[in-house]
């Protein structure tokens, strides 16, 4: 069979002169699951955007089902049966989940929208693929995990013949990832073709038939997954051996840095999102929060960092109350924060990389000198961060918008790690970061903790939580269901029971351990 998609000698130069693809030849067989891997900024998303008509290649040919195509917009690609889930969310915040899913192909009745049908179809497709969403929820108010599921359902709803998934699993829980893989396999059974981008090599091994590795805009090679190993793929991508395990010296628990006492939060719709949550974080430890998305972790972090008011309770950092204080006050108390949604909170896309790096420190020395900001210092900080964190860019003066997704994340990590915090709250810190950089970020996280920083780690990636944390708490429906003082000694299954609320430690039990 001829390839369903064939890219021939694709070059792509962005207006700012960055060449993202250099003579890429890439072909996808009909009915296969084709993984695409590569470091951050290797040009994966760019290549996919070319297939989807969002970017036009500077040179080269796009052949779909044997025909050379010139897509001028996504519309053309959609019409050719291509669907895509984007790395960054493409949702309309004020619309409901169902409205987002049917956008552009709304069911109608005598010319008017059929809202009920949209909801029904959303429920149906969500059940069909096991991707849980609330059809009537406003997108602005749902967490990243559900947003991601909405994105996937959007593409599935359209019944695309060729489905491009650009890092769909970055914020999914392992269970959800499994469900997604199930869905993908179903699609393939129905004769569809899937291109799948991820940084988690385990997923590549698990789901794909073939894998293509990109490096610095060029194809390193395409091979059947059966002939690859995680180590070999990592080597192909990075050009060196990558440690896929974190080495971690034993924890030296220090003084109590943060105390959270009886925190409750009731949201605007009257739902009790956090219920009587109490725990402590100590210097020199990584406290992991394990829980299925939507069980209050997002709100907990936002309340702890001053982005959201709480209903009642108390929170102290080094004995100083920080609850319902402004983000500035919380930060001044020594808290730094890697937010879960980098584009909403974490970055100002149109501002330069350097300016994104100083949002928590521009007002104090050495960045402020006299009445003004010392931009020499800022540039130095930028240069150092770019080097140390491997942010792929020619210049710190460029806008963040010109970075690849993973490199955007690195900017946030660089800022929050270098703020010298007493408490580092990290939500999804390695989201979208390539294997090499993930290794680095994890190392740094451990190093911070070893140097005496308290770390709160919230991640959808249970593996990450388990391998990095010293202590783990599980959350279910806004309550803490269990505390595990020795992360190394619990199993994934055990945690799962607590995360799903099947098991529950008693108050006294927990109090002791907290």
């Amino acid at each position, binding site marked *: 069979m001829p390839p369903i998609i064939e890219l021939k000698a694709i070059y792509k130069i962005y207006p700012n002169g960055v060449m993202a693809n250099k003579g890429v030849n890439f072909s996808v067989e009909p009915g296969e699951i084709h993984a695409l891997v590569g470091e951050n900024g290797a040009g994966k998303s760019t290549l996919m955007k070319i297939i989807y008509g969002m970017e036009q290649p500077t040179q080269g040919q796009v052949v779909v089902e044997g025909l050379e195509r010139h897509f001028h917009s996504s519309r053309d690609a959609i019409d050719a049966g291509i669907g895509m889930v984007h790395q960054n969310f493409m949702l309309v915040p004020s619309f409901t989940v169902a409205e987002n899913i049917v956008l552009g192909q709304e069911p109608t009745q005598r010319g008017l929208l059929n809202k009920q049908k949209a909801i029904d179809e959303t429920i149906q497709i969500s059940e069909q693929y096991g991707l849980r969403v609330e059809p009537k929820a406003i997108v602005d108010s749902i967490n990243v995990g559900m947003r991601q599921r909405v994105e996937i359902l959007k593409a599935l709803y359209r019944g695309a013949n060729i489905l491009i998934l650009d890092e769909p699993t970055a914020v999914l829980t392992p269970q959800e990832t499994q469900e997604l893989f199930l869905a993908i396999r179903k699609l393939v059974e129905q004769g569809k073709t899937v291109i799948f981008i991820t940084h988690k090599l385990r997923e590549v091994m698990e789901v794909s038939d073939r894998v293509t590795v990109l490096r610095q805009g060029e194809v390193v090679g395409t091979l059947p997954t059966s002939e690859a190993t995680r180590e070999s793929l990592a080597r192909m991508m990075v050009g060196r051996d990558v440690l896929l395990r974190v080495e971690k010296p034993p924890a030296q628990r220090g003084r109590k840095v943060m105390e959270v006492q009886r925190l409750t939060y009731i949201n605007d719709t009257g739902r009790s999102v956090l219920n009587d949550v109490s725990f402590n974080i100590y210097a020199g430890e990584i406290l992991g929060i394990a829980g299925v998305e939507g069980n209050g972790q997002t709100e907990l972090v936002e309340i702890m960092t001053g982005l959201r008011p709480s209903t009642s309770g108390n929170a102290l950092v080094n004995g100083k109350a920080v609850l319902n204080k*402004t983000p500035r006050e919380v930060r001044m108390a020594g808290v730094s924060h890697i937010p879960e949604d980098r584009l909403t909170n974490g970055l100002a*896309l149109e501002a330069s990389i350097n300016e994104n790096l100083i949002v928590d420190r521009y007002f104090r020395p050495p960045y402020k000198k006299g009445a003004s900001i010392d931009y020499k210092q800022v540039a130095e900080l930028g240069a150092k961060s770019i080097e140390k964190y491997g942010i792929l*860019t020619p210049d710190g003066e460029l806008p963040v918008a010109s970075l690849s997704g993973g490199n955007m994340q690195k900017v946030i990590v660089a800022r929050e790690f270098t703020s010298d915090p007493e408490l580092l709250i990290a939500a999804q810190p390695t989201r979208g970061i390539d294997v090499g950089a993930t290794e680095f970020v994890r190392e740094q996280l451990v190093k911070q903790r070893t140097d005496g920083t308290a770390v709160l780690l919230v991640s959808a990636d249970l593996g990450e939580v388990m391998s990095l944390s010293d202590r783990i708490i599980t959350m279910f429906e806004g309550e803490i269901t269990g505390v595990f003082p020795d992360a190394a000694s619990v199993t994934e299954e055990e945690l799962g029971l607590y995360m799903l609320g099947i098991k529950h430690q008693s108050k006294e039990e927990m109090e002791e351990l907290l």
Partner: protein
Amino acid sequence: MIRKLYMKPAVREFLRILLAITISLTLGFIITLLVSEDPVGAYKAFLTGPVSRINRTGEWIKEAITLTLLGLSVALVFKAELFSMGAEGQMLLGALVSGTISLFVPLPAILRIPLALFAAMLVGFLFGALPGYLKAHLNANEIVSTLMLNAIALRVYDYFLIFHIKPEGAGYNASDFFPKEGVLPTFIPNVPFLAEAYELFSRRANITIMLYIAIAVVVLVWYLMYRTPFGYELRMLGANMKFARYGGINTKKTVILTFAISGAVAGLAGAHLGMGIHEKLIANITIGIAFEGIVVALLARNNPVAVPFAALAYGYLRAGADIMERSSDVSREMVLVIQAIIILLVTAERVLPIVQQRVNNMRENTKAEAIEEGGQNVI
């Protein structure tokens, strides 16, 4: 080589503007041809009018000063991704307060003028803070509030002018001329070795020291915007409000301050109208210029350093158009039409599709070249 040069954004921008100006002026001339018996003379008046006589040049520069201040005022707000139409009200109150001081506060010029200017800025600051406060704390839309506040300020201005400032039995709604101590001095000092220039300017084109003040304000606003923590806050607010908040910026305070500072600059522009241009308070003092700050700021892309140049260029267009109407048979309305066409075309990012096509072709070639050269600009 030439192609390489063409790729440079600054060069491209320059070429675009040059092309746009050429096209729009050509179109303007074609219209003039249709409506004038002496199109060449009329168009010459338009193109060279503002520099053909010292008093005309003076008018142009004086207006450009006001436009610069207004442009800066608007650019501040726009940079924060806020929208303000409030310059009119702020200017009116600035003119009113500074005018009152100029007229009635018995201080020597050296004290009275700074006091009046300061008061104008203060009242602009406070009047600007109002929509800022409404926006920040009550989430009240700033387009509505600024438009309404303008209308209120206009009537307050008229009320004070007519009932409290206008001298008894005056023939129209205006104050007395300001005393010498309340008028901004000529920009050339009255010293012996500059006597001739002073004489010429103070008589024929009384450009005042507001020229220097405006330049200082340009530098200050630039400094404020790009060098100070407040400017950083303002720009981050504009880039992503949620990010600003997350990063610890007090977004409410920033919103209020942005509006207030913008108001202060507009208030100063108002003082210029009274103390620099009319030398008295009159009705409709802001009528022709109130919203032109928006045009200037957008022309300058909210860049404070570009604002005076945009103000000079736009002021030239306005002055030239006026002179064409005064000294040719082209009617006022046609002059407006020509002006509108020039604004539309000069600000078009893509000058004309045909031209754009050319540019695209050229760009493609350049890209191909870059690829052939092994893409050395790849990182």
